[in-house]
């Protein structure tokens, strides 16, 4: 970390950090060593704009982000209270202008995040030396800028960033290798398919040959054979979700471009788990900061200030679910159920609401359970497994639809099944469209074919076209994406001239 950016904590804060850290440890949290730095709001805006890494590669969007954050500070719209970096050691930033109660809250909150980073399975494969890694990426990109020019490198980064979400969200640690075929299983027929043996009908007499296997028939047979062969060399053999990896392996890029694309992909994989565990991670951190503060740290005089701030963090926001609030409420719901023994076959099969309500077997397994949950779940499985009917009612969840005439969001209903389906639908693939490479030699012309697995929501078409153009810049040959537009199968095609939307193909699922 750049020493010029930050300053040491005051002795008073040092003591507080020490105290809260030991509380966190005693309560069973487990984290990498955590280093707190004191920054002013300008530095905080800067660090936040760089996604936590001031040493990152240069790019205009960080400048844009900085201006946006700094401006919202000026208007008092937002205050970044917390900033934690998943790294070993963990780095966390404290805003110099925060009140002491706020600082205590943030410190306790940070330890919640640090425990989550270290223990949740989604983060198990993240690079814990990312701080160094990012600096290394930064210097590599700077070198390319010196070699080939700022504009060129920056616009190539623009291209990579527009493809940044085309990674395998569910398998950040699965790095499938696609090796082009080795020399030793070299297949002559791939080069000249006309040399392939053609099956003939048996003819006993030589002079009958021309009648039994006429020229036209042989041609037909040969075409069939060639087609079979084509199918065999389908490439890739099965659809590839990690589009970036496919491009890295097979797109005609120069060395520096390949490296830049690899850097963008690497960073996308590093940040992906944070998007996949937002609700749990924030819920976990809020759970622990409120527990540590209210039970162990706060003086009586500070409680009101704390509650005031806390209410701000976990307020209801109507149309958009507040991840902090949803997360912490669901965590507490799980804890309560497992404390009372509301789990297992008996409980599941019980359908008397009154019995269920008063179900208490004093199992006291709540704490153990939430620790387990924070280790083995991501947001999707968390919601899927634990968001039950009781919770829906307690948390006052509802579905809303937009009223056509007024544009107002109107409460639609409070039916549990609808709510859950709606939530999980929206979270599919963590909110990104499912896109695979299905063919790297489409139409046998070296075109790329991507498939969007449509699940009820259309792509934003103008953006899809722009993104396709960017893929074309990387692939250099025509590019296609098969999707569904207004319930019809379509293929968007771009070959460098004008994008076209063509009739689509039906994939067998």
């Amino acid at each position, binding site marked *: 970390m750049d020493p010029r950016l930050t300053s040491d904590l005051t002795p008073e804060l040092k003591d507080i950090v020490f105290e809260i850290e030991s509380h966190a440890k005693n309560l069973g949290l487990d984290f990498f060593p955590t280093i707190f730095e004191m920054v002013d709001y300008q530095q905080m805006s800067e660090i936040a704009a760089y996604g936590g890494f001031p040493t990152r590669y240069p790019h205009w969007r960080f400048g844009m982000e900085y201006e*946006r954050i700094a401006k*919202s500070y000026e208007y008092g719209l*937002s205050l*970044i209270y917390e*900033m934690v970096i998943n790294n070993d050691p963990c780095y966390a930033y404290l805003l110099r202008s925060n009140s002491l109660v706020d600082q205590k809250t943030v410190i306790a909150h940070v330890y919640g*995040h640090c425990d989550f980073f270290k223990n949740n399975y989604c983060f198990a494969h993240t690079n814990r030396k990312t701080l160094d890694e990012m600096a290394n990426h930064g210097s590599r990109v700077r070198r390319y800028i010196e070699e080939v020019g700022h504009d060129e490198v920056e616009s190539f980064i623009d291209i990579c960033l527009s493809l940044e979400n085309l990674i395998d969200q569910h398998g950040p640690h699965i790095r499938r290798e696609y090796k082009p075929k080795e020399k030793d299983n070299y297949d002559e027929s791939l080069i000249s398919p006309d040399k392939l043996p053609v099956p003939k009908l048996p003819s006993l007499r030589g002079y009958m040959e021309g009648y039994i296997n006429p020229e036209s028939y042989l041609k037909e047979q040969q075409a069939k054979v060639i087609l079979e062969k084509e199918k065999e060399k389908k490439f890739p053999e099965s659809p590839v979700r990690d589009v970036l990896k496919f491009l890295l392996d097979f797109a005609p890029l120069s060395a520096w471009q390949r490296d830049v694309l690899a850097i963008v992909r690497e960073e996308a994989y590093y940040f992906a788990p944070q998007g996949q565990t937002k609700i749990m991670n924030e819920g976990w951190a809020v759970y622990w900061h409120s527990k540590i503060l209210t039970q162990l740290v706060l003086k009586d005089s500070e409680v009101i200030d704390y509650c005031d701030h806390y209410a701000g963090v976990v307020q209801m926001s109507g*149309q958009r679910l507040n991840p902090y609030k949803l997360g912490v409420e669901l965590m507490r719901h799980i804890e309560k159920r497992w404390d009372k023994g509301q789990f297992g076959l008996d409980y599941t099969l019980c359908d008397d609401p009154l019995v269920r309500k008063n179900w208490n077997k004093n199992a006291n397994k709540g704490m153990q359970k939430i620790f387990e949950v924070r280790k083995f779940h991501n947001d999707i499985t968390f919601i899927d497994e634990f968001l039950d009917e009781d919770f829906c009612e307690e948390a006052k969840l*509802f579905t809303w*639809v937009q009223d056509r005439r007024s544009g107002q969001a109107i409460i639609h209903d409070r039916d549990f099944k609808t709510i859950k389906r709606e939530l999980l639908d929206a979270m599919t693939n963590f909110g990104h469209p499912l896109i695979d490479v299905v063919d790297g030699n489409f139409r046998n012309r070296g075109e790329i074919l991507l498939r969007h697995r449509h699940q009820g929501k259309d792509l934003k078409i103008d953006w899809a076209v722009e993104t396709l153009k960017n893929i074309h810049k990387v692939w250099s040959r025509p590019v296609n994406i098969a999707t569904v537009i207004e319930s019809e199968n379509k293929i968007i095609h771009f070959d460098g001239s004008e994008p076209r939307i063509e009739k689509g193909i039906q994939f067998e699922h």
Partner: protein
Amino acid sequence: MKMKMETDVNRFRKIVRGKIKDNLKRFISSGELIGRQGNKQVTIPLPRIDLPRFEFGNNQQRGVGQGEGEPGDAVSQGQAQPGEGEAGQNPGEHSMEVDVSLDELAGILGEELGLPRIEDKGKKNITQKKYKYQGVLRNGPESLRNFKRTYKESLKRQISIGDYTPDRPIIIPIKEDKRYRSFRIEEKPEASAVIIYMMDVSGSMGDEQKEIVRLTSFWLNAWLKHNYDNLDTRFIIHDAIAREVDEHTFYHTKESGGTLISSAYKLCEKIIMDSYPSAEWNIYLFHFSDGDNWSGNDTNECMTLLDNFLLPSSNLFSYGQVESRYGSGQFLKDLEKHYGEQNEKVIIHQIKDRDGIMNALRAFLGRGK
């Protein structure tokens, strides 16, 4: 701000400049910037510069929320959240506001319209003293000590006499090592300009015509401010009589009288006589009307006023005729007859509608006078 972020912010600003240029025509004819003018800054609404991705269309028509209410009730919007800043991605909004200084905006206008820089006629009224630091002296006040140079001198001396060990890099400057910054007082002439706006507010000028004048003058001001250190603006409205008003009144007055253009030119002459000796001031005259002067006599008088005093004392006289349903537009023809289309100092331009403002600006400012 550290150097690093500065680079990224500058890269971003460069992109923004390009966006503003792309949207300039819209800004000029819509006037949305005028209301957003602060002291020296203009807040410009731009579509968010986002990188395209494969994403779902954001026609979000359904979702899950949390809170009180019965089915059928409108969802109450919570207040803004305190932000979070866990390293990660933030959802973006779809438009953004960028603060740009008026000066920069004028620069963009100039680039887009291909305006030449105004050649100062060398009229000087004030010279300003500026302290310029340059050069290094061997003696001076401690407050002006040049630390770097002093340090280097010490280092050179200590190394040359073998008094420096890299392990204990201690440098002690003595009097001979000390270097000080020196300064010169420079006298820089300051160029000043005044714009006198005249507008016909007789009954035949409608609100839309006035709005066109307002939009045009906003950009004229910006460009001239960009070119001169000091800029005064004065406003004259006239129907059959003329009076000087402040800016607000200038745009919000509606009279019902007839039109005597000469009244305005006379008042303009008086203002120049009283406060702006033409040896010291660059004077710009802009007159907007629907061209409906009452009588030929008055028109002749206008030409006399122009020829005898207004043109000789000013840099430029521009007449902008806004089309109205009632105006005859005769005055423009009379001016053209008198001065021809290529007069050195007189620019005559017709502004049909808001879309014509851009060309009007080009006509008025395109000569670099």
